[in-house]
């Protein structure tokens, strides 16, 4: 442990020296004003927000499934069946996850969708099933806390109920988005969600499946993260 102790002593003397040099240089001068009208201009009515988001995300290969507040769990199941997914990772403790599981179980009880895609709960620390997560999961299902109309994008706040890797490791990411939660821009979303005041250990925006253009500027999808991003877009605008 000698290394760690010496480095921490070195670090605090570096800190003192750096900060005192910066202070000696002096701030000086009034702060230039921030004119945010360029950001405020980016506003659309609710329905247009939904269309803009969809257009923006489809341009980067995101796929959309249209749903209603009443049928989205069935829409999700139909997709999984159609794709022949072996399993779907979900968070049993999250609102969307619990609803998905309850509806699927009820359908099964009613004799629909027997067999097919198995729901797989993410209910233990990742260390307990890291290999399986990387090699044995077909898709992950998560909710979202909102969307961004200007550029297209989903806002996620992973937590204990819906862990971080669900939207990253499985080759397909299935995300639930309610149209009423779509904000104008990332800027307005940060303000609306109060992210500047408090943030969980991880929050993120996702606009499409993982991609790269590192080989000759040619786009290739699914480089490290999901190869496909499927948004279940719930149209709840009339209700909101």
């Amino acid at each position, binding site marked *: 442990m000698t290394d760690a102790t010496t480095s921490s002593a*070195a670090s605090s003397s570096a800190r003192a020296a750096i900060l005192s040099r910066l202070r000696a240089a002096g701030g000086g001068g009034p702060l230039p004003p921030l004119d945010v009208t360029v950001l405020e201009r980016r506003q659309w009515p609710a329905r247009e927000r939904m269309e803009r988001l969809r257009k923006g995300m489809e341009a980067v290969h995101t796929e959309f499934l249209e749903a209603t507040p009443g049928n989205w769990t069935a829409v999700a199941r139909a997709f999984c069946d159609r794709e022949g997914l072996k399993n779907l990772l979900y968070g049993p403790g999250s609102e969307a996850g619990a609803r998905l599981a309850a509806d699927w179980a009820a359908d099964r009880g009613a004799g629909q969708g027997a067999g097919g895609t198995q729901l797989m709960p993410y209910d233990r620390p990742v260390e307990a099933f890291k290999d399986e997560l990387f090699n044995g999961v077909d898709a992950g299902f998560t909710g979202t806390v909102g969307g961004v109309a200007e550029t297209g994008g989903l806002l996620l706040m992973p937590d204990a109920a819906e862990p971080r890797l669900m939207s990253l490791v499985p080759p397909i990411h299935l995300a639930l988005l309610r149209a009423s939660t779509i904000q104008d821009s*990332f800027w307005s979303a940060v303000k609306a969600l109060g992210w500047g005041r408090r943030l969980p250990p991880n929050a993120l925006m996702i606009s499409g*499946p993982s*991609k790269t253009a590192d080989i000759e500027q040619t786009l290739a999808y699914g480089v*490290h993260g999901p190869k496909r991003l499927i948004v279940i877009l719930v149209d709840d605008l009339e209700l909101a």
Partner: protein
Amino acid sequence: MHAELEVHFRDSAAKALLDPQLRANFRRAMDGLMAKRKAQFPDPADLQDLRDLSTAIRSRSLLNLPDLLEQFEANCTKNGIRVHWAETCEEANELILGILQSKGAKTLVKGKSMVSEEMHLNAFLEQHGIEALESDLGEYIIQLDGETPSHIIMPAIHKNKDQIARQFSQKIKDAKYTEDVDELTAMARKVLRQKFLDADAGLSGVNFAVAETGTLCLVENEGNGRMSTHVPPLHIAVMGLEKVVARLEDVAPLYAILTRSATGQAVSTYFNLITGPRGTGEKDGPQDVHLVILDNGRSRIYADPQLRATLRCIRCGACMNHCPVYTRVGGHAYEAVYPGPIGKILTPQMEGVGVRHDLIHGSSLCGACGEVCPVEIPIPEILVRLRREATHTDAGSQVAGKGTGRTRTEDWAWRLWAGLLKRPRLYRLAAWFATRFGKALPAGAPLIQNWTRTRTKPVPARRSLQERMRSEAQSGGTRHD
């Protein structure tokens, strides 16, 4: 004073110009990037408003830098992120080694980080028996060949598909030869996913550091950044001390202009906000998050009111994409971690204006870089300022290596010139000789050949202006006052 200066850029640029493959690769890539950026900014007034706002945000961050850094550190600490400070790259490397060793980590997967390139971290860790693997596809490609990035955003831009196909088939186990980009990408995916799964630690850079929340923002398309920061049990982030911004809402316009300027994307695939290690009840994410804040000359740059603008940079790479020099010679010719216009002002300020005077002069001052820079860094003006700094020792200047770019020949020439100007008679005599015999000087004469190598030799007028004026006055000709 330097008797002789090392010249890297002129020689390596000359060599690069003779490589048609390299030139074609860059030309194609830069043309594509410029067109894509342009398409993202259809309205010039809107772009200017966004640039003004971004510039103001970065300027405010710098004006408040020490306070913001302290606020940022306090919030990170509260969030459970361990913050370390390093004055030099050596210190930063030692810090990271110490953290890795204290956890018994043997393998490190890396997301893209230019600061870690600045530190030459990979080589350092390798010396200490720790495998550091680049996971950004471009970085992975160049690491396979032991190369350095040729662009700050697209590190493997100097290579074309055939070159990468050949390289993969030789260097990746069981790989077959293919020029299909999807297949090549899939090969890298397979190798790297296993590495993410097995790695003891992950390392990333930081695009923006938010003071009010203690948050590290990462911008990426591939997902390797998220893999490196969320899968291994330990995450180490490195950042230059200038990266801090006051509020999260200030990051929104910077992010908007960053991706559009860099790759012509309205938005990146992922915008990842990291505000702490695995929280209570969380089932994944690293148990430990460490952050190393690096100075490496930045506080000295900060001390100069004009040069401070250098630190506004958000590393979008637009200045290199639009640079006529960079486009022709590529990134490696600069022999510096940061190539292109930003590198031309940053490297000499970090390493000394004398030793890297080649970079300061390797510019036509066309102004394209300053025109596209999203945070309006006056790169051409700074280049001119550094040219002066390289040969002068102005009092009050803190520029690294000021005055050390002055050569003996240059010094001697200036002295001669000053001596002549102080002695009118001698000056007239010299002028008389120059006008009568200047033409006879061979173009290949020492000193003169530096000019004539790429230009025609100027022919002096037959008579000096003074002589002409005098004779016209005597002959009662046109007055010139």
